[in-house]
């Protein structure tokens, strides 16, 4: 294979293009997966016609439909903030993908503080949600935005704490190093502790993505679509659909990286190593996404005050205890 020499600028452009492709493509695939997984969990077929085979083109068609919709900005809205909000939501989500290692060397930027960056950037998009809710001049949007912010503050902590425990186990903040440290996936080893951390992480991640059962901010039977009530067309796609799917896939990737051993085989066994790392990574990410999709049709929605109580009185103390146990494990085992 001839060596292709690229300048730093060219590499940067390629990387940017790849990242920019991931979210929309992922949203299309993820949206279809969501349709189908939910349908089959509910004794129905889901979309069957668009595209011919099992309705594969449904989300594509949906996207094209949204492209043609009128872009309505309400008269009373703060127009500049209202138009900027979808970008403020989308950009941080796209930036999450920068540090997720898909293979040993297949990572856009292997930051030394990867996990720190990851957790910081994944909560920035809430500012966009607040912008959207506040500028819409709609009371439902306002309620939704405030719920969203409150929820982020409450559930960011368990996610951070469980990720911190992982960093302690791996002894590094770099995501590639964290994956390398997992000869056995962290969910299996240390026994029990890893699983508990994983469950805390999944709960917090679901809440941060505002998915059922923690989807109070966008509860469609109560406050329509929360912060995105007034959005139409492409702005709606960006602020809600792409953001939701982008988040879903990002957290799937993060979960796979932190707890399921990323690009490593599921068990340290020689013959499994012939399978390339990216395959392992994608399999694990899909598993995580399936887990998130599975939870949605299973549970009712938690009320706002119960949601806060659950976070502050149960999840955060639990994750603090887990941090303690992790520390003991790292020190003595």
């Amino acid at each position, binding site marked *: 294979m001839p060596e292709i020499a690229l300048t730093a600028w060219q590499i940067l452009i390629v990387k940017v293009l790849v990242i920019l492709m991931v979210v929309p493509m992922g949203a299309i695939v993820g949206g279809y997966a969501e349709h189908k997984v*939910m349908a089959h*969990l*509910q*004794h*129905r077929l889901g979309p069957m016609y668009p595209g011919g085979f099992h309705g594969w083109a449904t989300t594509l068609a949906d996207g094209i439909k949204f492209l043609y919709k009128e872009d309505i900005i309400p008269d009373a809205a703060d127009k500049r903030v209202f138009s900027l909000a979808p970008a403020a939501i989308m950009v941080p989500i796209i930036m999450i993908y920068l540090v997720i290692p898909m293979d040993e060397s297949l990572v856009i930027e292997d930051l030394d503080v990867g996990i720190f960056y990851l957790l910081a950037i994944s909560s920035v998009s809430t500012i966009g949600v607040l912008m959207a809710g506040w500028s819409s001049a709609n*009371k*439902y949007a306002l*309620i939704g935005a405030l*719920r969203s912010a409150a929820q982020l503050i409450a559930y960011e902590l368990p996610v951070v704490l469980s990720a911190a425990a992982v960093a302690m186990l791996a002894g590094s903040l770099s995501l590639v190093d964290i994956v390398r440290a997992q000869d056995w996936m962290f969910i299996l080893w240390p026994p029990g502790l890893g699983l508990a951390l994983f469950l805390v992480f999944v709960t917090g991640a679901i809440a941060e993505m505002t998915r*059922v*059962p923690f*989807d*109070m901010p966008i*509860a*469609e*039977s*109560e*406050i*329509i679509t929360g912060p995105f009530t007034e959005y139409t067309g492409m702005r709606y796609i960006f602020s809600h659909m792409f953001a939701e799917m982008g988040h879903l896939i990002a957290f799937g990737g993060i979960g796979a990286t932190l707890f399921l051993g990323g690009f490593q085989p599921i068990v340290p066994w020689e013959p499994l190593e012939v399978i390339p790392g990216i395959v392992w990574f994608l399999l694990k990410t899909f598993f995580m996404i399936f887990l998130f999709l599975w939870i*949605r*049709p*299973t*549970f*009712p*929605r*938690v*009320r*706002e*005050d*119960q949601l806060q109580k659950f976070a502050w009185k149960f999840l955060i103390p639990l994750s603090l205890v887990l941090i303690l146990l992790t520390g003991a494990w790292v020190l003595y085992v």
Partner: protein
Amino acid sequence: MAVTEDRGLADTNIDGVRDSSDVAAEVSSGKLMTEEMILNVGPQHPATHGVFRLLATIDGEVLVDADPIIGYMHRGYEKLVEARDYRQITNLVSRMDWLSGINNEIPLHIALETLMEIEVPPRAQYLRVAMLEMNRIINHLMFFASFGAELGAITPAFYAFREREDIQFALEMATGGRMHFGFFRPGGLKEDVPRGFFAQALKGVRQVIDRLPDYENLLIGNEIFKQRTVNVGVLPTDVAYNYGVSGPIARGSDITFDVRKDEPYLVYDQFDFDVCSAPHGDCFDRFWVLLHEVVESAKIVEQAIEGMPSGPIMGKVPRVVQAPEGEVYVRTENSLGELGMYLVSDGDRRPYRLKIRTPSYNNVSALPYVLKNTFVADMIAILGSFFFVLGDIDR
């Protein structure tokens, strides 16, 4: 609808905005300063099942006050029926509570039969009971579905609709309709049921009885569901009495009143069924009653079909349906509560006056009481557990 209770807005002016003295008092008492906001829930809102408006005063997540505003769907049925003859009215009244169409038709027919002194043959009576109860099952499963969906559980809706379909199909076989059946006639039925109807109906109701435990596990047994409904939206027994609440909602508040049992019409006194009731009056109890009534209805359908007499399905009815002068009040147990019709006839082919007492109208009047000082999220649970149909409120 005027709120009769204390509105709880004594310290605010009409817009819910405090004046400066209130704010000063609040700051000096060390309370956090918040401002109330008026939120219009509806008339177009997914949780209201139609055009129902709730003028809600909210303080953050707390619903300080709620004022239901109805009338967006008023179609003037009570006046309209005065210009229609009895055959046409049958199909009009079935559009009041569109989820239990056949249940709306029955009081009118009983009223007519009472005035005209028509004897309805037993087969027609049994068939009527079977169909009424099948319709009740369909209606209750619909509310089961929508209540789950309102709490964010999307799956029960699909399960319920799958179960509804078999019963729906049986009714469709006999009547040709899926919502507005129009199968009853003064004196009996339009025609006898087709072959295969009984088998299909039995299949449908037995399936419901079999699968109901699954639903209980899926929704009622869910911890989140319990948290959302237990002790939420409590309607005490005396308040329920005062507002004239009836049906599953009243029975959820420990009122064991069921017209089918207490004042049996048709042949309900010949069947063995229980009146479900629950003591606490919260959303959970209302929902529990609703779900268990499905089983009781299914039992009635089974008994009716097993004991189905043979014979004619039509009594001796004159060629022109024309009620003699007189008046009669008939009350029946609609799916959502007591449906009463007060028919005054001056001997014409049209009613002189038909006053309709619909269950949803009275049930919804208790909403302001229940909604006060709840959370916005509870509002949805309460609206969902009040099982109302807009057409039934506004007529």
